[in-house]
């Protein structure tokens, strides 16, 4: 079955058989299923210790997934990601003890959170760590690996201060600048994920539910954009995928953004920050436009 290119119709009936033809083995699929089960367990976990253990399980499973899917060449480069993740999950326990017993500052916890997410001031490992991941671990690392730290972050009373607003704006700005210089789709998605970190932070202000709504909408379109890398989709879809990632109104992601905006207005978010967030998002279409321009050229 060489040269088999599955269509959109085939992906509706996705199964083990189809995936094995694409080069996935059984063990990796087992790890993926187990990974999502543990993610669901994590979302139901109540106390700190069990959630910490589940995070460790999740990162272990993620290592197994990417190990089973990547070449020997890629393994050596992926190790950056694992070192940073394991370091930060150690820090979680350590800083928890420091903060709770010795009443250290909450800033230690925030720093650890920033490293784990690869957010603005501490994203030195971000492009190095992510770029060589194979596509399925790349997607999981971009989305579902970020869910547990953000979920834990909601329990910490950080307080919506000026620092919070500044970090939102800086993440969006730096994400825009970095996605501009991209020459491959993977780098663009990495830059835009830095940019959406800002949106995630702002959607956390009303509550975790609005974050989940935005997160789930964004995840669907990120899957579609990642299918573009693997060339499984007809490329005519590229315009719609990117234009909805940019948040143009008739498309679904706009409604998620509008929900977040309206709930932010209810929670008396400062209007200047809100307007800057909206206006800066207009530039994102410029950067996405490079990847759908070439479809409309004849030659």
């Amino acid at each position: 079955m060489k040269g088999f290119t599955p269509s959109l119709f085939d992906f509706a009936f996705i199964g083990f058989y189809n995936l094995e033809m694409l080069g996935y083995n059984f063990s990796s699929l087992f790890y993926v299923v187990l990974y999502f089960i543990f993610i669901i367990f994590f979302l139901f976990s109540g106390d700190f210790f069990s959630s910490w253990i589940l995070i460790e399980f999740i990162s272990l499973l993620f290592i197994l997934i990417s190990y089973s899917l990547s070449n020997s060449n890629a393994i050596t480069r992926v190790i950056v990601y694992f070192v940073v993740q394991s370091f930060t999950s150690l820090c979680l326990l350590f800083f928890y003890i420091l903060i709770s017993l010795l009443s250290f500052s909450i800033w230690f916890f925030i720093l650890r959170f920033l490293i784990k997410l690869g957010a603005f001031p501490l994203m030195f490992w971000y492009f190095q760590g992510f770029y060589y991941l194979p596509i399925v671990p790349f997607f999981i690392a971009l989305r579902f690996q970020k869910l547990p730290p953000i979920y834990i972050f909601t329990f910490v009373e950080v307080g919506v201060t000026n620092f919070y607003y500044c970090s939102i704006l800086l993440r969006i700005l730096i994400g825009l600048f970095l996605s501009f210089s991209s020459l491959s789709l993977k780098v663009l998605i990495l830059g835009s994920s830095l940019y959406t970190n800002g949106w995630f932070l702002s959607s956390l202000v009303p509550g975790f539910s609005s974050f989940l709504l935005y997160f789930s909408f964004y995840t669907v379109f990120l899957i579609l954009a990642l299918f573009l890398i693997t060339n499984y989709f007809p490329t005519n879809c590229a315009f719609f995928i990117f234009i909805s990632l940019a948040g143009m109104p008739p498309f679904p992601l706009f409604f998620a953004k509008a929900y977040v905006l309206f709930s932010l207005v209810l929670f008396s978010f400062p209007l200047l920050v809100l307007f800057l967030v909206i206006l800066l998002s207009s530039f994102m279409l410029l950067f996405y436009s490079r990847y759908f321009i070439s479809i409309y050229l004849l030659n």
Partner: protein
Amino acid sequence: MLYLQSYVYIWSLIISAIALFFLWRFVYSYIFGPFVFLITLFPFPQSEFSLRLNIDCYSTLFSFIVLLISLVVFVFSITYFQSFQKGVYFFWITFFFVLSMLILINFSDLFIVILGWDGLGVVSFFLIVFYQSQVSIFSGVFTILINRLGDCLFIILIVIFSFTSPFLGFFWYLENSYTTFLVIFVCFMTKSAIFPFSPWLPAAIAAPTPISSLVHSSTLVTAGLYLIIRHRNVVYSFESIGLLLVILGVFTSFYAGCSSLFESDLKKVVALSTLSHLGFICLALGLGWEILAFFHLLTHALFKSSLFMAVGSLIAENYHYQDSRYFSFFSSRAPYSTSIIFISEGRLVGFSFFSGFYSKDYVLEAFHYSSFCFLLYCFLLLNLFFTFVYSFRILNSLVCFYFGNSYNLFIKFDFYHMFFLSFLSLLSIVAGKFIVSLWDFSLLTIPSGLKVIPPLLLFLFFTFFYLIQNNFILSHIWAHPMILYFFSNIVFLVDFFTNFLSKVLFSSISFNNHFEAGGFSFFIFSWSSWFLSVFRRYILYLFSLNLFYCLILGLALFCFITF
């Protein structure tokens, strides 16, 4: 071909039925006054979310005109697209375009209006990139990016009005005056191509001609101005909006007229005349006569669409060459299209008792009643002068014999197209008198001495044009490469939006190399050199603009001071 024809005839029947419905609603609302048709869908956090269909004189008459023009465009595109494979695709896209325009016109709930507002932007991208060339993709992306800016501002408007309005529509209260004012103003200016955002409009002629006649006459470019007219109670409650609208409108129409003098692309001349008319409508809005602005919007839509379709048929007969020097002596080869062009040029200039005569002269007379300074009036008269010049240039290129190809393609146009186009041009002759009889403008009376100025300008123009044509030195100054570059760039605006901004962004690549590794090295080593390089570019660019913009901004300041 036959399949396409039957397809279009069925659609045109449906469209004409809807158009007649809107005409009936117009008569109803003219007699009994406006009313609101409302369905509440679900409550929103602060205000309810509903379908609010406003039926009044403005919306019904404008949607009738839009449907009429789109009907003629549909029929015109049967012959225009007979050699293309993507005919049906084109019809569906155009259908969505007209639909989103109707949504924009008829609904007043902001959450619904933005669907139409942005549907126009997205669908216009597909229409502009129809030919799939490098030029068309450039102008398509340029258009969609400017539209995206306007769309972001519209979302901000929704956020602002969700504080105050009980029904998520345009609603005025006094507290957030300044930001709301700026956002409303810039948002509507992006769509209507007023001063800083105008270069997308001449670029959009890369679309096929039936679409240009739809876009440049009634649908896309008038959206912002229409929303100002519709929500005039909100917009006019700002103090300084009149002054801004007048100055920007006069300036826009001034440079559009200037650049159309130096343009040899026939289609682009017509597009630039659209730009100057948009400035004129903006001026009428700034004077406070929103009903005159609406009147000119309608008449302009009628004559500009028929002009575009006639020019488009000429271009199709000339093997799609658009250069006006290749159209020499076309009046004998395509007499029907040329006569349509003659009639619509007459309306564009404001020939007596045509529709353009009523709408244009009332705006000029309304200007005499305002308290603006004499300099602006001079600019306005210069605009009229330019209108004469470019309309004469179009006619001159068709009638006179310079050089060019002696062969042309004979295209047999559809009978229905000829019928509808004749109907449209006849209607746009009569429409002026008809609309004047609907609303009473008898308040506007001026001394007859002022009325003589435009015909005097006409004589002035002929002497001027004669001098330039025959004087050796003047004709060389006229066609100097610096001047040609200046006006073909639309006063450097194209240069600003494409070259300069991209240079600034590309200078950020060194910035990015640092920030991919966290950005610490940037702050330690190279921030100063980066900022210096960006500022050097910026200052060099400013110097290149200096001569013209200092003059214009100085004049604008002068106007402010004297006002």
